[in-house]
């Protein structure tokens, strides 16, 4: 069984006959009994999407999936083309099917991603929990400000905008937590 806290963008689970893939994490709120996570899921059978709030106590049936290591080869409009690192076959995924993950990756990345297959079709991508990105734009940082108490928006080389500590600057390499798109740490 998969618990709510194990669900990430790209996770796939079952509710009776419905097979659902998590496309986007839309926010979380904490409580003494755990988090409630708002997420967008897509029903792989109907194609419909819905926004749901899942608390941490629920469990769901897992789905038998095939996973293949791939690299993002290129992006053509809203189509992301991945290259299987073993068979060198190409597979396409729509930007909507990548959900939040579309904002975290670029064709220049060296790291592998996992493409999930359901009944022979690619349905989503699972990224490493932490990936490295470079800040391409932000307001000037403050030397010596390592308190991390306040944040500012920073644009990454993937185009994603993330809140980073004030000491970050253009060119700073950071680790991004792909579970919720948050700043994890500065790469030393």
């Amino acid at each position, binding site marked *: 069984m998969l618990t709510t806290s194990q669900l990430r963008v790209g996770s796939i689970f079952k509710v009776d006959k419905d097979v659902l893939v998590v496309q986007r994490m839309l926010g979380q709120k904490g409580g003494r*009994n755990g988090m409630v996570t708002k997420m967008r899921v897509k029903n792989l059978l109907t194609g419909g999407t819905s926004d*749901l709030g899942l608390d941490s106590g629920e469990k769901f049936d897992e789905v038998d999936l095939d996973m293949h290591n791939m690299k993002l080869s290129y992006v053509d409009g809203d189509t992301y083309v991945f290259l299987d690192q073993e068979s060198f076959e190409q597979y396409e995924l729509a930007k909507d099917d990548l959900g939040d993950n579309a904002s975290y990756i670029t064709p220049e990345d060296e790291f592998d991603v996992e493409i999930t297959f359901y009944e022979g079709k690619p349905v989503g991508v699972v990224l490493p929990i932490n990936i490295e990105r470079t800040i391409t734009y932000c307001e000037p940082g403050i030397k010596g400000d390592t308190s991390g108490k306040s944040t500012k928006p920073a644009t990454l080389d993937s185009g994603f905008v993330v809140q980073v500590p004030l000491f970050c600057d253009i060119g700073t390499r950071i680790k991004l937590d792909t579970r919720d798109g948050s700043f994890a740490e500065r790469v030393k």
Partner: protein
Amino acid sequence: MGPWYTGFQMTLDILCKVVDNYGDIGVVYRLARALSELPAAPRLRLIVDDLAAFSLLEPAVDPSRMVQSVRDWTVLSWEGPTPENPAVYRDAYAGDPAVAVIECFACGRPDWFEAMLFNPDDSAARTIVNLEYLTAEDYAGDFHKMPSLTRSSRVRKHLFLPGFTAATGGLILDDAFMHARARYACARYACARYAPAERFRILVFGYERDYTRIVEDISLFSHERQVQVLLASGKSQRCFLAAWERAGRPFSTEPLPFLRQESWDELLASCDFLIVRGEDSMSRAALAGRPFLWQAYPQDGAHQLIKVKALLDRMRPYFHAASFQSVESAFLAFNDRLADGPDLVGGERIAPMLRVEGGLARSYAAFSESLVANGNLASSLMTFLREIV
């Protein structure tokens, strides 16, 4: 489906786990009373994991009994049927299965209840509503009534969030509290018009902290008005008395025993200034319309300041900017600490709030009226249930 106050009588199963103190069971007890006061009130089954804690609020609850009738409610132990009494729970659900379930604060479901809800031989639809903790943060409106999921499409689930705006479920407006609120509002009007009350009564109900600054301000104020400080039983009583002793006992204090909720509400509504903790007492203080200072539960990374700032943002529109500064700085200073860190004593000046400078009393009263105007959470919950069950 017609309005909830006509049609068949719904049965609600309300699940509660007592996490710490009496906040969780206190809200459930208040909700149960408020639901029972509605026209065409639902039948209630309360499933509680700590009946001893519940019995302090409702003395008719016998902690040793697994299934019992209290008021018009059926109260069941979370533990469930035992080998010695396998039928006792079956009888409680015979002919009246669990159809609508209120899961309080994502408490989960006991195994016997889970088996009943997800019985593969049962094709009837079930609905769970997760009643979440009260917060003033924006997400309350965003998450309110949001669909959720369980592992079965037959067992539907939704979120329901109490809150301070019309986009949320509102606050619980039970009769006993509202009557006390109205009674003391009239009494204050009479005092303001004809003769001031003999003593200015301050209620203190907080977490463990250093109350030195609070005691100083009350001591200064006591030179202008005769003051009586009522100290709720529990964490803050000892700490406050320690600061009071260090200051040379400058005003009258009265340590209180544990009070039942109805008595607590009466006391809270009667006081002139309130220092409160937790969500339920904070909601009562806000509804009472009296100046109050809230201490939020300290969390890692001082996350409680986010919750405090959210509450201040809800209050702000009802205050003049200049006078709200003293309220805001007191709230933030009173709550500025890490979960395991020391208090930062000094910034929590309450003197302007005690003197209700700048029309603070009118502002707190206006905020209170806005909350009442959002409606009764018990009513909105029943309306929602009638739509989805």
